[in-house]
């Protein structure tokens, strides 16, 4: 993996670099993946789990995780759900449009530590894109990892992201034939769905893993992560092996603006990926 470029002093970390949209892929009704290339300068190397700040000219800037392959940094890939004004503007971009990019920022998934053991990846909704680079990396070095599972929950079948890849991963991630590493569930079955219905945490109790040698990575709404953690703890996975990616309001991503504080952590630099013990005392509290 390429090391992240560090910020060169003298340059303002608040100033974006222009990137051109080379492809815009409509994933679902409200999710778009943008493939971006730097207009000048080096491509943006990153580690799985990191994010960038994407700036739409004059509209605003928001944190978005990188969803592409860390081994192919020439193209910066980011997947965005339209929820408000900036994300809406991002989702409207097409080939040739220019966005500003700052980053990559933040901590990354513990893929080094996870080597040699099992990996459980739990994603809820738009939580899958930040985990995809980790999957790519594992696929790249599949032999380094034991059993790998992706548990993914979406609202409806139509909201499932990357369906083709999910199918592919079913084979490529498998440690043994017929292992069924990708397990998907939806809140509401629609349109002839014959898969699982229910919350993603319901998939955890039956996973064949070696708990003490398992690392879990999760991204989703805070409640979902709380329940996931409790289920994983029930399976006996040590808490220091549980990793989650947190979200807070972010104005700068470099630790200056103060907005992303979460207890003692700055989500932008200490996170977004944090080991569970670091948030244990905070995650059950309201309004932190």
């Amino acid at each position, binding site marked *: 993996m390429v090391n992240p470029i560090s910020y060169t002093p003298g340059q303002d970390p608040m100033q974006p670099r222009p990137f051109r949209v080379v492809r815009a892929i409509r994933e679902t009704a409200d999710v778009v993946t943008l493939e971006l290339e730097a207009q000048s300068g080096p491509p943006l190397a990153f580690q799985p789990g990191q994010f960038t700040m994407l700036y739409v000219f*004059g*509209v*605003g800037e928001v944190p978005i995780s990188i969803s592409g392959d860390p081994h192919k940094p020439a193209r910066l890939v980011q997947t965005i759900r339209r929820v*408000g*004004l*900036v994300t809406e*503007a991002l989702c409207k971009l097409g080939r040739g449009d220019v966005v500003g990019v700052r980053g990559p920022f933040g901590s990354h998934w513990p893929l080094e530590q996870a080597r040699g053991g099992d990996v459980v990846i739990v994603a809820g909704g738009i939580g899958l894109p930040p985990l995809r680079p980790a999957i790519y990396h594992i696929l790249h070095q599949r032999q380094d990892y034991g059993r790998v599972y992706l548990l993914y929950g979406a609202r409806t079948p139509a909201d499932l992201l990357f369906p083709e890849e999910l199918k592919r991963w079913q084979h490529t991630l498998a440690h043994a034939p017929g292992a069924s590493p990708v397990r998907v569930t939806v809140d509401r079955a629609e349109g002839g769905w014959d898969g699982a219905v229910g919350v993603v945490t319901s998939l955890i109790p039956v996973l064949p893993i070696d708990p003490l040698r398992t690392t879990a990575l999760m991204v989703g709404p805070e409640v979902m992560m709380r329940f996931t953690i409790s289920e994983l703890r029930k399976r006996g996975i040590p808490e220091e092996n549980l990793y989650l990616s947190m979200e807070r309001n972010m104005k700068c991503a470099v630790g200056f603006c103060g907005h992303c504080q979460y207890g003692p952590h700055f989500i932008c630099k200490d996170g977004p990926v944090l080991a569970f013990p670091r948030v244990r005392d905070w995650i059950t509290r309201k309004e932190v």
Partner: protein
Amino acid sequence: MPSKQRKPTLAVWKFASCDGCQLSLLDCEDELLQVAGAVQIANFLEASSAVQPGPYDLSLVEGSITTPHDAERIQAIRKSSRFLVTIGACATAGGIQALRNFADVEEFTRIVYAKPEYIKTLKHSTPISEHVKVDFELRGCPINKGQLLEVISAFLHKRRPNIPQHSVCLECKARGTVCVMVAQGTPCLGPVTQAGCGAICPAYQRGCYGCFGPQENPNTVALSAWWTLLGLDEAAQQRAFRTYNAGAKAFSKEAERHG
């Protein structure tokens, strides 16, 4: 702005008000022609006799609803407006004329008019949002012209206007003004009032009088407790909350406590 595209149309409407908020647009001397270049002023009676029929992309509505006729008129305006922004304390809170809401309108009419039987008006002065859906409310008595331009350019660029809803105190401090309440014991509404004016009152050595209405999280009870320590009597406290935003809920509720 690409000139080939059809320019968005702008309409300005007036209800019960002093005209000041509309004038704020004409007071944007440096930007007025730029505004006129970016939008097509399709209906702005105070400024132009050329009136084009709707629908309009952006309607700015000044003034409060005080007559049955106006209550109907605003419905029609809403129907012909894609985006409707209310401007000023009258339109967003009922304005100073909402003081009638706490009194007997008939008595008011008798005081002002020699032949009160000719005057027919609604009992209450109400904000536009009580009648129709409003897309954005711009506060102030009058509105701040910088904020007005911000709302118009945000609309043109389809972004959220940067209009903070926090207290005046943040602006006051950014400006470097010395707090008049702390340093002089002058009662100030700044802590419970929404920013936007630039904290001018404290900068001119007086307490804020609340013309931008309540901030997002106003603790009027705690403020008035402090005012009591500063020696402000109940009647004066009630009057302080009954001015240009008397109809705004947080202020009208607080005023009632001092009745």
